[in-house]
């Protein structure tokens, strides 16, 4: 039989049994749509996290106290050793590396912040003027920390938008003296539009000079040292230099963890890619379920059309022709289901994009492609057994409808 004729015959049969066609179409479409939506969800999450890490700053290298061991619990932990503190002197020493452009030591804690009888608990960030650049924050109002020696404690602070709104209300914030913990400081500026950034909600925080924070929390130990490398290429050198310098200063012990933004990003990227594959796989399983449904419904179709098959045989149809005819039907169903499913998937992605405006839903092409391919393969694989059954029917019994 010619391909064109076969397609016509198959289409005719599909149109003739609309309920059956619709059922199988829906099953396949749901499977394909599931793959498309789930993977676009995974991709959206992945690119969201990637963007978040980009907002961390450029060419960022982060020094964290304590060695992160890849094997066991670490000898140090077992014999009760604690890592040496990271100090301001350590931070300053890092500037010796030619690959390092800027450093920003960070202390983190929490304290009550009050003004004129209003009080709230806020995360307190102790740092230096360089932080603004390193984290690529901006100011909404006034100035960031004054550019003085990092060892000097100045009674100044910079506040986030929420803090300003809740404590100072409508008053002009610059120059107001607020109380942070047990000390008073003058507001020099309000942090700008950075909004949420990885690790901190900028609107909620109060930034004070790092020395003030050390005094406030009564500890010399830094939480992090953020380093901006001179260029992307310099990041590896910076990382190496940082390790060497800290090791020198810590009596030969490499007791810090140095991570680069890229490495963190790569890790998250890997996690979210795996996640995307996983949810895509779950969607693919639903496609295979759809395939099983195709098989069952095709088997019913074969028994419904037994007499027609008998007739075709009497008219001289070869087994191969009958197999091809029913297989074509199954593949058509799968193909139509795939098209509808891709359309539904894209629609759902657009819908999700309207609900979760932070995320960008763009179904990945590889997922769309493989969903369609799997749907077609299901049509063939699960269509072949009913088609062969049809082809093998005994013509006399089939004509009698048995």
């Amino acid at each position, binding site marked *: 039989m010619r391909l064109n004729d076969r397609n016509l015959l198959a289409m005719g049969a599909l149109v003739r049994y609309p309920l059956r066609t619709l059922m199988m179409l829906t099953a396949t479409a749901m499977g394909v749509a599931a793959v498309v939506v789930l993977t676009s969800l995974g991709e959206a999450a992945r690119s969201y996290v990637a963007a978040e890490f980009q907002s961390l700053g450029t060419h960022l290298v982060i020094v964290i106290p304590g060695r992160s061991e890849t094997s066991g619990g670490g000898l140090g932990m077992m014999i009760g050793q604690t890592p040496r503190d990271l100090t301001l002197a350590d931070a300053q020493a890092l500037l010796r590396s030619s690959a390092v452009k800027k450093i920003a030591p960070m202390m983190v804690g929490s304290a009550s912040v009050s003004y004129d009888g209003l009080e709230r608990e806020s995360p307190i960030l102790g740092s230096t003027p360089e932080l603004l650049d390193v984290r690529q924050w901006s100011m909404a109002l006034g100035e960031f920390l004054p550019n003085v020696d990092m060892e000097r404690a100045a009674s100044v602070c910079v506040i986030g938008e929420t803090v300003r709104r809740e404590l100072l209300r409508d008053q002009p914030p610059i120059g107001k003296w607020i109380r942070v913990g047990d000390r008073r400081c003058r507001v020099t500026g309000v942090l700008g539009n950075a909004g949420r950034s990885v690790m901190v909600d900028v609107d909620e925080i109060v930034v004070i000079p790092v020395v003030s924070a050390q005094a406030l929390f009564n500890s010399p130990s830094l939480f992090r040292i953020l380093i901006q490398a001179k260029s992307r290429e310099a990041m590896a050198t910076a990382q190496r230099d940082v390790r060497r310098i800290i090791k020198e200063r810590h009596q030969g012990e490499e007791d810090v963890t140095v991570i680069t933004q890229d490495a963190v990003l790569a890790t998250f990227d890997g996690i979210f890619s795996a996640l995307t594959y996983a949810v895509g796989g779950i969607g693919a399983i639903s496609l295979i379920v759809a395939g099983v449904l195709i098989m069952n419904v095709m088997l019913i179709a074969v028994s419904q059309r037994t007499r027609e098959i008998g007739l075709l045989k009497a008219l001289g149809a070869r*087994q191969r022709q009958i197999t091809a005819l029913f297989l074509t039907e199954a593949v058509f169903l799968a193909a139509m289901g795939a098209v509808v499913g891709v359309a539904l998937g894209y629609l759902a992605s657009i819908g999700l994009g309207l609900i979760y405006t932070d995320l960008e839903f763009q179904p990945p092409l590889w997922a769309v492609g493989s969903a369609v391919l799997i749907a077609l393969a299901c049509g063939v694989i699960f269509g072949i057994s009913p088609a062969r059954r049809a082809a093998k029917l005994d013509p006399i019994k089939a004509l009698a409808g048995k």
Partner: protein
Amino acid sequence: MIRLDHLNRYFQVGDQQVHALEDVTLTIDSGESVSIMGPSGSGKSTLLNILGLLDTPSSGEYWLDGVNTSGMDNNELATTRQSRIGFIFQSFHLVPRMTAFENVELPMMLAEMDKEQRRERGLQALDRVGLIGRVDHRPDQLSGGERQRVAIARAIVMQPRILLADEPTGNLDTAAGKEIVGIIEELNAQGLTLIVVTHDPKIGERAGRKLRLLDGKIVTNRNSSASLP
């Protein structure tokens, strides 16, 4: 043209063996009109199925146009059916979703004829059975007699040598039945070999040769010229 040589057909029903055809030897010449009669279970249908290559004998030989069909595989049987044998059934066996023309077109599609040829031959066949005005009607828009005429057009469209009819008037009223008999007799007069299985003696008696089966055996094989005008 058709030669059956000591043909036997057994069926296994449960643990019992049924002898549906027993030592049938028969020759039918080109252009003959043959009726096969006999009570239910006498083997009429089995004989017709074997003649139509839908069934194969358990032993014995069936020669069609000088070819021994027992050596044929499924595909060869299908091809031979397609080109040499036309079927007419009691229940018409039209595909309900297709128009009259599409039903007639079906065997030509299976034979991979091109579209123009199919159009030409299909319309010609429908014209021969007097249905040229009903080409685009579906079976449910046609009367019983018209449906059977579509089936006849479908049976002859491949220009076979043999027309096998299984109770062709069984589902029709008298008037329509007469019409159908008229059409197939006319086809026979034009040279088509006609083999009709029937219960109806009025139709059976019209055939040039009457076969009577009983318990799988041919008990009567009688020529007459009664049906010829």
